């Protein structure tokens, strides 16, 4: 504990952010300040003061923190490099964001293995509900006072908590999967929706409610998503979204892949986002390792990321039009998407999952002739978008099915953790590319489209306009592509530049080790948050000084978005729910990871 005293709040207060000093003064000397590479202040608070601290940050402090960005935990039991942190077996952490301050804070609570209880924050943020269920499911932490603390990602009868270090990671470590008739029946029975478990009654004074199970396989739910509806006739009284059918254990996977070989797994998180997913991950690793990325690599990254934003939004546009009853648009938009993917393929060799970014740069340089392809596309798409305005946006049925459906305001959005186009549709202009420029976005001219009503129609408008802005960015990349290397010359760059390998035995060994074992990243914690296709996507990486991540927390935008569905669909018809689900624009891999 001597290290802790050294770092405790009262002793080195001049290095600490003002907010931390303020909190320490108010909540006593037990608060411990921890510095991390990402420059987000970490404050350890005792668990009996957690709710007070959080209430203070949300409601009382000047320029408050209205957004509960992320909640999860860390299994600390095997971690070696913990200098400056209080003793802890499991650490629950809460990541808050203040828009007014444009600042983050991470509150951490140390928990003992024998006493994994912590008060719930569902009374302060409705968004905390699912995050706490996830932490319970993954770590077995009991959130006292939670209204319905049950598993969320694993099946209801699962044994153990997967992100604990003792839980098996591989399917091949466990018994082979079999599906007997008895097991099938038992599993189906476990999935039965029981309204009473969710505090729903079966009757009201004048009506018997009907319960409708939509999903997990239904053409309109965009993947393996299930939602149970409480209906009065065709009117939705309440809804219970049920997720976890797409849990691919990406966070556990990060604990056994090298820093380099984890990159392909990130592609498959938001599987419509392609290399956009690589970006926050490689940026976080680069920050931990202290790698500067050369300008050409930055611009190539931005260009490809924006291509994928367009690709994802095009798919959204077509499928949303289909959801509200238009059969043709999806065929137009898939043609554009094919054109776009042909550029992606020419540059990266892949279509949906190129895994093309590397720690310290990108995989290869751009091929000869890339500029002609890109120029053709940026000249071609605007006309098509104008055509779609006439075909879809101004179509009467399209409008009637979208306008004033599923609306929410900015305060509600923040309360529920909504980010991205869903947040900007409410009139809030928070786009991380502008507010916290990363990867060189400050060098580009583009506008942030915002909506006003926060309904389905505004969410479509924002995305359509974002495609035009992305085209603007791509055109700037095209016109101003810097020359120079596409990879950093830092020794941790993986794989290292080829030219360096054949110089002498040292560089050859270094190349060999970096490729075969992967880079060794210095111990530390780093969170990088970007404006992904569907909202804010962050990777919170904890390195214990090894060739693999100790803990990787992937905060995806779609997870909180789905949690909000009941709020915005009550009182609407089932057909409106389909429009609402479509307008959220999620993929289940981005929810369940």
């Amino acid at each position, binding site marked *: 504990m001597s290290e802790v005293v050294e770092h405790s709040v009262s002793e080195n207060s001049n290095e600490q952010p003002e907010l931390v000093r303020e909190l320490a003064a108010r909540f006593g000397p037990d608060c411990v300040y921890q510095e991390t590479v990402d420059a987000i202040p970490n404050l350890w608070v005792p668990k009996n003061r957690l709710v007070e601290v959080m209430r203070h940050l949300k409601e009382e402090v000047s320029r408050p923190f209205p957004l509960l960005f992320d909640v999860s935990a860390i299994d600390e039991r095997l971690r070696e490099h913990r200098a400056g942190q209080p003793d802890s077996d499991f650490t629950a952490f809460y990541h808050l964001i203040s828009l007014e301050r444009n600042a983050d804070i991470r509150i951490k609570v140390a928990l003992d293995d024998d006493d994994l209880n912590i008060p719930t924050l569902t009374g302060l943020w409705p968004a905390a509900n699912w995050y706490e269920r996830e932490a319970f499911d993954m770590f077995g932490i009991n959130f006292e006072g939670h209204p319905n603390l049950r598993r969320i990602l694993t099946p209801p009868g699962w044994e153990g908590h997967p992100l604990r270090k003792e839980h098996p*990671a591989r*399917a091949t470590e466990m018994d082979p*999967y079999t599906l007997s008739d008895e097991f099938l029946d038992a599993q*189906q029975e476990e999935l039965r929706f029981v309204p009473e478990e969710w505090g729903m009654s079966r009757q009201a004074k004048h009506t018997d409610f009907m319960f409708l199970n939509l999903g997990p396989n239904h053409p309109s739910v965009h993947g*393996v998503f299930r939602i149970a509806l409480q209906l009065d006739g065709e009117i939705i009284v309440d809804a219970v979204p049920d997720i976890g059918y797409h849990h691919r*254990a990406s966070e*556990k996977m990060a604990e056994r892949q090298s820093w380099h070989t984890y990159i*392909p797994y990130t592609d498959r998180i938001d599987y419509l986002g392609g290399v956009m997913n690589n970006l926050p991950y490689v940026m976080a690793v680069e920050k931990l390792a202290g790698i500067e990325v050369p300008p050409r690599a930055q611009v190539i990254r931005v260009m490809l990321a924006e291509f994928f934003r367009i690709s994802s939004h095009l*798919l959204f546009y077509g499928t949303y039009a289909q959801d509200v009853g238009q059969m043709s648009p999806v065929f137009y938009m898939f043609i554009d998407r094919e054109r776009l993917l042909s550029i992606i393929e020419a540059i990266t060799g892949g279509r949906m999952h190129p895994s093309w970014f590397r720690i310290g740069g990108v995989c290869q340089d751009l*091929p000869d002739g890339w500029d002609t392809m890109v120029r053709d596309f940026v000249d071609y798409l605007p006309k098509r978008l104008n055509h779609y305005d006439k075909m879809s946006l101004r179509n009467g049925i399209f409008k009637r099915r979208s306008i004033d459906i599923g609306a929410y305001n900015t305060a509600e959005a923040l309360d529920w953790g909504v980010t991205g186009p869903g947040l900007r549709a409410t009139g809030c202009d928070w786009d991380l590319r502008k507010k916290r420029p990363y990867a060189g976005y400050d060098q580009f001219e583009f506008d942030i489209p915002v909506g006003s009503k926060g309904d389905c129609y505004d969410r479509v408008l924002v995305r359509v306009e974002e495609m035009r802005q992305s085209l603007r960015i791509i055109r700037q990349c095209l016109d101003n592509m810097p020359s120079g290397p596409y990879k950093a010359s830092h020794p941790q760059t993986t794989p290292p530049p080829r030219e360096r390998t054949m110089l002498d035995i040292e560089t050859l060994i270094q190349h060999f080790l970096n490729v075969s074992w992967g880079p060794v990243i210095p111990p530390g914690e780093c969170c990088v948050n970007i404006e992904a296709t569907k909202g804010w996507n962050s990777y919170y990486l904890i390195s214990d000084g090894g060739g693999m991540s100790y803990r990787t927390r992937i905060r995806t935008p779609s997870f909180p978005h789905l949690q909000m569905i009941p709020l915005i669909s009550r009182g609407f018809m089932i057909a409106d729910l389909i429009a609402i689900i479509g307008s959220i624009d999620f993929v289940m891999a981005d929810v369940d990871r």
Partner: protein
Amino acid sequence: MRWRLIKTEPGALMTEPDEAYAEDLAKSVIVTKLEDLIAWSRANSLWPFNFGLSCCYVEMATALTSRHDMARFGAEVIRASPRQADLIVIAGTVFRKMAPVVQHLYDQLLEPKWVISMGSCANSGGMFDVYSVVQGVDKFLPVDVYVPGCPPRPEALLQGLNLLQDSVAHDRRPLSWLIDGDQVSRVPKPSQRDLRTPERMKATQLAEPTSVGLAPLSADLLRDISAEDRVK
């Protein structure tokens, strides 16, 4: 096709059918066995179930849209209910939480029914050897065609569909259990890799990897395409 005029004098006999009639007949009448006819129509009117699990489903949907147009093979009528479908494409990762649902849906498909396993996850678990993923859908479903890739290109799915159609057209199923019992005789399904390796080994000259254009192809395949057309 040959055309001719017939004189229609009152009372005159129609001429005897000559070889032109025989040619017409050959074009419009097929003499076949009933089981062949049924197999042929089955193969060319597969009704896939609208079912997707993850990333692969996006490529499957792409195969249905205009560029790739699965309708060319008579398999575009995707059905939202398993009770109207006879083909399920397992497009994506089979999760432990989802496996009982997949089995339940499969049980509801109409007989005879077929399964295409699309993508590495459905084939074997692929890169996801983790606690929540079943290591291949064939752990609990009989698979007819495996389509490799992560995700497979739409063209690969179309090829998988063609292979399935081939086998459906050549498998022999009893017309009724009263006639032949319930024995299905299936044609062998050899590994496509084994079949195609010799041909692929011939591709020794590849296009320059540093320029955009068509995908690298062997010189044999490219011989009809001029160099200007290639780098467009």
